[in-house]
C-alpha cells in the first residue's frame, strides 16, 4: 500500500520563522557584521543579499560533554596495516589523525565563526534600524498622488461582478432556516405520498380525508415557498472596495562632491561611503531612486558613478558651480512637483572665499525650497582633525552653511573624520526621534 504525494508546490520557506528568530537573537553580532560588510560595497550595487560572518557567542547551544582530552579512550579502527598487539605508538603533538574521532569536532570550539547569507531586505532592515525620513511639511510641492483600491468589508449595493457568493448564500441559508422554508425533499415526499394514495382504485373515507389533508399541507408548503424566496435581496452582499491615496514614491538623490586637488583619496573614500549609505537608505523608502552625480572643481559637470569616484581633476574650487548645475538638472528633468529631491554634498570645506555668499544665496533662494532634505558633510582626514580639534576651527564654507541651518529645517551639516563616523552621522541625520529634537 502506498501513496505518492507531491509536496513540491507546498509553500516554501517553512523555516522562515526560525530564520527570523535566529536573526533576532543574533542581532547585535549581525549588526556589527553588516556594518563591516557595507564598507566594501559599490553605491548602486544593492541588489542581492550579503554574506556575513558572525561570532557564535550567544548562539552556542551548550550540552554536557565529556572532556576528550582526559581519560581512557578505547577505540576500534579499521584498516590495520602492520600493527601488532603491544605496539606503542607515539602520540602526535596535538590531535593527529586517528585521534580525532567524533568526540572532537561535533560541538567543540569548531563553531566560532558562523557564516550565512542575509537577504537584501534583512540586511537593510538591520542596517537602518531606527532610522526614518524626516517628516517635513512640504509647502509649495504638489505631491503626485496615485490611487489604489483596497478591500473594505461588505455592502448591500454593488455591481454583480463584486457579488460575494459565500456570504450571500450564508445569509440566505440562515434566513431560510429561520423562516422554515420547506425544502425540495419535503415537497416531493408529500407529492409522492399523494400519488401513491391516489393510485389505489378504492379509497376509504379515511384515506380520502388523508388525501385532502395532504393536499392542504402541500398547498401551504408551496405557498410558503413562494413567500420565502430562496434568495432575497436582503441576503445579497457585495464586496466593497475603497479608493485610497498613495503618495508619490519617486526620489532623486543628488551627490555633490568637490574633486579638486585638495580632496585626497581618504576624503573621497569617506564621501563615497556617505553617499552609498544615503543611497541605500533612500532605496528603502522609495520605490524608485535616481542618483545624479555632480562633481566640481571650479567647474561642475554631471558624471557617472565610476568617473565620480575615481577620476582625478585639477583646478580651483567653486562650490556654487555644483549647486548651479544641480539647479539646472532639477529644472530640466526633475520637476519638484513630481519628485522628492534629496541632496548630499561632500567637501573638505575649501572654497573660494568670495563664493560662499553666493552658495548661501543659491541654497536659500532656489535649492532648499525645492529639496526634501539637503545634507552637507564635511570630510576631514584624521590628521587634519588632530591638528584642528574643536569646532572653533570651522572652515568658511562650514560657517556659511551653519547660518543656513538656523533658518532651514531641511538642512543639516555634519563633520566626518573617520570611516567609523559615517554611520553615526547618517544615523544622526535620520534618527527617528529627530522630529522632537527639531521641535
Amino acid at each position: 500500500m502506498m501513496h505518492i504525494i507531491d509536496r513540491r508546490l507546498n509553500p516554501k520557506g517553512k523555516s522562515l520563522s526560525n530564520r527570523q528568530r535566529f536573526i533576532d537573537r543574533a542581532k547585535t553580532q549581525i549588526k556589527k557584521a553588516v556594518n563591516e560588510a557595507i564598507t566594501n560595497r559599490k553605491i548602486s550595487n544593492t541588489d542581492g543579499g550579503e554574506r556575513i560572518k558572525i561570532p557564535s557567542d550567544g548562539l552556542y547551544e551548550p550540552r554536557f560533554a565529556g572532556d576528550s582530552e582526559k581519560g581512557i579512550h578505547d577505540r576500534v579502527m579499521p584498516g590495520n596495516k602492520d600493527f601488532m598487539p603491544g605496539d606503542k605508538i607515539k602520540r602526535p603533538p596535538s590531535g593527529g589523525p586517528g585521534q580525532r574521532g567524533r568526540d572532537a569536532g561535533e560541538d567543540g570550539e569548531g563553531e566560532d565563526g558562523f557564516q550565512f547569507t542575509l537577504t537584501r531586505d534583512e540586511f537593510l532592515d538591520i542596517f537602518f534600524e531606527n532610522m526614518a525620513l524626516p517628516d517635513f511639511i512640504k509647502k509649495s510641492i504638489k505631491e503626485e498622488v496615485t490611487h489604489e483600491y483596497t478591500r473594505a468589508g461588505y455592502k448591500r449595493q454593488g455591481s454583480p461582478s463584486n457579488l460575494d457568493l459565500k456570504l450571500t448564500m450564508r445569509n440566505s441559508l440562515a434566513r431560510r432556516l429561520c423562516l422554515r422554508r420547506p425544502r425540495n425533499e419535503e415537497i416531493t415526499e408529500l407529492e409522492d405520498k399523494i400519488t401513491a394514495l391516489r393510485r389505489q382504485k378504492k379509497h376509504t373515507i379515511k384515506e380520502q380525508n388523508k388525501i385532502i389533508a395532504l393536499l392542504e399541507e402541500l398547498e401551504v408548503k408551496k405557498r410558503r415557498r413562494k413567500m420565502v424566496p430562496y434568495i432575497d435581496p436582503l441576503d445579497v452582499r457585495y464586496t466593497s472596495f475603497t479608493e485610497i491615496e498613495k503618495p508619490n514614491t519617486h526620489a532623486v538623490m543628488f551627490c555633490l562632491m568637490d574633486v579638486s586637488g585638495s580632496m585626497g583619496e581618504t576624503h573621497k573614500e569617506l564621501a563615497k561611503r556617505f553617499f552609498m549609505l544615503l543611497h541605500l537608505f533612500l532605496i528603502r523608502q522609495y520605490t524608485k531612486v535616481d542618483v545624479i552625480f555632480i562633481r566640481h572643481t571650479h567647474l561642475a559637470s554631471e558624471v557617472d558613478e565610476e568617473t565620480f569616484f575615481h577620476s582625478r581633476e585639477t583646478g580651483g574650487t567653486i562650490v556654487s558651480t555644483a549647486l548651479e548645475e544641480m539647479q539646472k538638472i532639477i529644472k530640466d528633468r526633475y520637476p519638484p512637483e513630481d519628485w522628492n529631491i534629496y541632496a548630499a554634498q561632500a567637501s573638505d570645506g575649501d572654497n573660494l572665499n568670495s563664493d560662499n555668499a553666493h552658495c548661501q544665496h543659491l541654497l536659500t533662494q532656489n535649492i532648499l525650497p525645492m529639496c526634501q532634505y539637503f545634507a552637507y558633510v564635511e570630510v576631514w582626514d584624521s590628521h587634519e582633525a588632530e591638528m584642528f580639534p574643536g569646532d572653533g576651527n570651522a572652515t568658511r564654507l562650514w560657517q556659511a552653511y551653519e547660518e543656513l541651518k538656523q533658518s532651514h529645517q531641511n538642512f543639516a551639516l555634519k563633520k566626518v573624520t573617520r570611516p567609523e563616523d559615517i554611520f553615526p552621522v547618517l544615523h544622526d541625520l535620520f534618527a527617528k526621534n529627530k522630529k522632537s529634537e527639531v521641535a
Partner: protein
Amino acid sequence: MTTSKTRKKPASSHKKISPPIFEGAEWDYEKVDHCFQAIQKIAMEEMGLNVYPTQIEIITSEQMLDAYSSVGMPLMYNHWSFGKSFLRDESNYRKGFSGLAYEIVINSNPCICYIMEENSMTMQTLVMAHAAFGHNHFFKNNHLFKQWTDANAILDYLQFAKNYIAKCEERYGQKEVEKILDSAHALRDQGVDKFTRRQTLDVAALRKRELERNEYEQSQYSELWRTLPETASKDDEEIDLIEKALVQKLGLPESNLLYFLEKHSPVLENWQREILRIVRSMAQYFYPQRQTKMMNEGCACFVHYHIMNRLFDTGQITEGAMLEFIDFHSRVIAQPDFDNQYYAGINPYALGFAMMKDIERICENPTEEDREWFPDFAGNNQAIETLKEAWENFRDESFILQYLSPHLMREFRLFNLNDDKSRPFYLVNAIHNKQGYTAIRSALAAQYSVASLDLDIQVTNVDLHGNRAMTLTHNVTNGVTLDEKQVSLVIPHIQRLWGYDVSVKSVGPDIGETNFA
C-alpha cells in the same frame, strides 16, 4: 562487488524475465508506482518483510533543507536553533561542501519517505527499497522502537507540540518560551528514560503488602532470635525514615533530568512543565535511533541491495540502472582506513551492511570457524529469517557482541587502540588475530554502548530541608571527566529550570570527586 548467493538461487529457480519497468533517468508517477509494486512484491513475498503502509512525498532540495533543520521531522515547533542549523546547512550546501540526503524517512505510521525531485529513476527505486522497506521494516519490528516510540501517534504529537508552543508564545511572549526551550534543549541528552519507569504502586496495594508482611513476621517471630540489643536511637531512625520517604517520593537518583525538573521543579509554571515534556518526548523519540544507527542502516542497505539485485535478475531494471546503483551503493558503504584523510570513524553503513552480508554468508556458506563461533545458525540456510530475528531483538551494542565474526574482523582489518590520555603513547591492544577476536569484539561493542554514547549524569540529592540545592552526580567511566566549559554553560540553564542552586560533581574510581560550582 560480488554477486550474492541468494540472488542467484531464486533467479535460476524461476526464470521469469519481464521487460524493464523504466529506462533512462527521468521519473514520473506511473514509473514510480510500477517500481514500488515490483519492489513490494519482492519485499513482501520473497523476503517477508513486515512494514507500515508507505507514504512517499516528493520534495525539492529547498524543502529537504527545511526538513534538515527541523531534525528531519515534517512538523516542528519554532525555535531559533532550527533557524541556525538551516542557515548552516544551506550555506554548506550552496558552497558545495555537503550534498543533501537522497531521502529522509520518518518512523511513523504511515511511514513517510521524503524523496527528492532531482533523483534519477534509479535513485528513486533505490530510495524506495532502502527507506520504504528497509528502514520501515526496522522501525516496525525492532524492540527498541516498539518499546520507546509510538509510530501511530508521532505526527499528531508533533502537531500538538507545534500548536502548544505557538499558543504559549502568544500568551507568555516569545522571549519567555524561548528561554525555557533553550534550557530544555541544553538538557536534551539527559532527557531520556533509559529504563522503564518504575510504576508507582497505589496506596491500597502498598498497605495490603505491609499488612501481609507484618502478619508473616508475627507468625514467624521467635523471642530466641532477638540476640542483639537495639542501638540506634529512635530520633535518628525517624529522620532517616523521613529522608528516605522523600527520596523515595522524588524517585532519586533520577537520570532523566528533564523528567525530574518537569515533575519536581518548585518554580516552573504548568505550561513550562509541558514544554519540558515536549522536548523530553522528542528526545525519547530519537533515542532508539541513536542506539540502532548501525543496524538500522545495515538493515536498509541489505534490503535495498537484495531488492535491486532481484529486480535486475528478473529483468525489471536495465543494466545501466544496475551500474548506476552499484556505483552509488559502493560509495555509500565505503569504509576508509583509519589513516585515510577521509576517515571519520566507522561508517555505520559500511559496518552494518557488511555484518548483514556476513550473517547471510554464515547461514549459507559457513566455514569451520563460523560453525565454531556461531553454532546456532551457521549453515541453517535461512539467512533472511536469521537476519529478521537479529533486526528485531538487538541494538548496535548487543548485535556486535552477538554477530561480529572473525571473518569480518579480518576483512575490515580491525584493531583495538587504547588511548590513555595520561600516557604519551597509544597502545595497540588487539588486532584481527586469534588472540584478539574477542577483545576487539567487546571493545567495538562498547563503543556503541549507552555508557559511551551518553554520559551518566543523575540527580542524586536535593536539599529539601535547607536551601533546596540540587546535586547532580556524574559517574565517570574510563576516566573521561566533564568538559568544564560546557558544565559552566549548562548549569545556568538547570538553575533557571530548578530555581535554586545547582552543583555538579564527578565521581569515579580513579579521580575521586570533582566538584563544579
